[in-house]
């Protein structure tokens, strides 16, 4: 934040003269503008011509540019072509980008923050998670880079609900089998839409469910693990650690996740006490 504020102070958007919002570059000259400002200007240019133009002159240097580059997050960016009228203009927010960043790091980096095996063993999945829908929406929006993904979220939620209903009866399957079932079902549901990132996505969804946290709290803990903000989230992480310490089984289960097939009766005590 400090960095971008400083650079914007010296380099305002040439169109609104304000700090640059949603930094966008023209593809030839790489002059920088607010996304909205340069799109508005391109629309004005286009409105003066009978056909949709294929290029726009840079307001600063007059070079012809064919597309707009925006949302560069260090790994990927979006390219919008002038002759496609810049599509419908969904823009990834900072939170979306943070989530995408998680997908550019090694899977499992935040696994230590949350006790995934406990989630399955103590059958915490039977408690409904009121934040899951919003979390899924943001996650799929980020991965698909599209705003209108309601139907995918619905689909995944439906599959997840189905999975829960099937596993309401106790003591039929081991937690490991239930977990595998969850992974298989959700990845089948998500794969047509997010393709190569499906496996990672399923891990992330499992992690979010296991955390039992609100989206904000989850983001903070995650950021802590990625080393994004070292100070601000520390108390939350500490709180999470404390809550983990309160569960005497956590240590044992961390070391050996495959042993003890069914201790769910024992774990249920903790669900009750929560």
């Amino acid at each position, binding site marked *: 934040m400090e960095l971008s504020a400083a650079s914007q102070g010296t380099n*305002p958007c*040439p*169109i*609104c*003269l*304000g700090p640059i919002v949603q930094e966008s570059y023209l593809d030839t000259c790489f002059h920088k503008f607010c996304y909205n*400002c340069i799109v*508005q*200007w391109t629309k*004005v240019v286009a409105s003066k011509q009978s056909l949709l133009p294929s290029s726009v*002159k840079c*307001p*600063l240097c*007059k070079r012809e540019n064919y597309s707009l580059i925006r949302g560069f997050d260090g790994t990927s960016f979006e390219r919008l072509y002038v002759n496609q009228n810049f599509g419908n203009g969904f823009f990834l927010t900072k939170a979306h980008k943070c989530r995408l960043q998680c997908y550019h790091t090694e899977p499992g980096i935040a696994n230590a923050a949350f006790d995934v095996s406990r989630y399955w063993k103590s059958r915490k999945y039977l408690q409904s998670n009121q934040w899951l829908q919003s979390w899924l929406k943001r996650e799929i929006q980020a991965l698909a880079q599209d705003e209108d993904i309601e139907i995918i979220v619905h689909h995944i939620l439906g599959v997840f609900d189905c999975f829960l209903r099937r596993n309401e009866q106790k003591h039929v399957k081991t937690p490991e089998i239930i977990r595998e079932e969850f992974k298989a079902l959700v990845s089948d549901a998500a794969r047509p839409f997010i393709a190569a990132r499906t496996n990672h996505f399923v891990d992330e969804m499992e992690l979010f469910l296991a955390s039992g946290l609100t989206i904000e709290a989850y983001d903070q803990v995650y950021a802590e693990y990625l080393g994004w903000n070292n100070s601000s989230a520390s108390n939350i992480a500490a709180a999470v650690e404390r809550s983990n310490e309160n569960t005497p089984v956590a240590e044992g289960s961390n070391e050996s996740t495959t042993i003890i097939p069914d201790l769910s009766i024992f774990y249920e005590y903790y669900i009750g006490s929560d």
Partner: protein
Amino acid sequence: MQPSRARLFKEYKEVQKEKAADPDIQLVCDESNIFKWNALIKGPSETPYEGGVFQLAFSVPEQYPLQPPQVRFLTKIFHPNVHFKTGEICLDILKNAWSPAWTLQSVCRAIIALMAHPEADSPLNCDSGNLLRSGDIRGYQAMARMYTRLAAMPKKG
């Protein structure tokens, strides 16, 4: 707030901060209406306008800076690209070649440049344009200097 107002206010702040930056241009905003501006510009040296101070009136549209401001001379000026009666200016950047990266300040600079380099081929003032096109540089300069003295210089005594 409308983008045009926000931007004009930024320009206003910039003008206030950098008053000394360009001694040839003095931009003043009508404090009761941020869409109305006035400017005093000095006639460029080594031109018939040297020594004169010319007043410009800006009328800024709501869509600014996506649309150019309307500018005209309030001070009478004899120049091929300025209408002698209305003060209207024929300048590409105020029409087709407008870019939102221009500011009121830089428009003033462009107008000063136009005063130094008249375009006789697109005249709004045909008398002035014809003098230049026929090669009567001295005639053009004499007329322009006379009107500068008459209209753009403080009366002495």
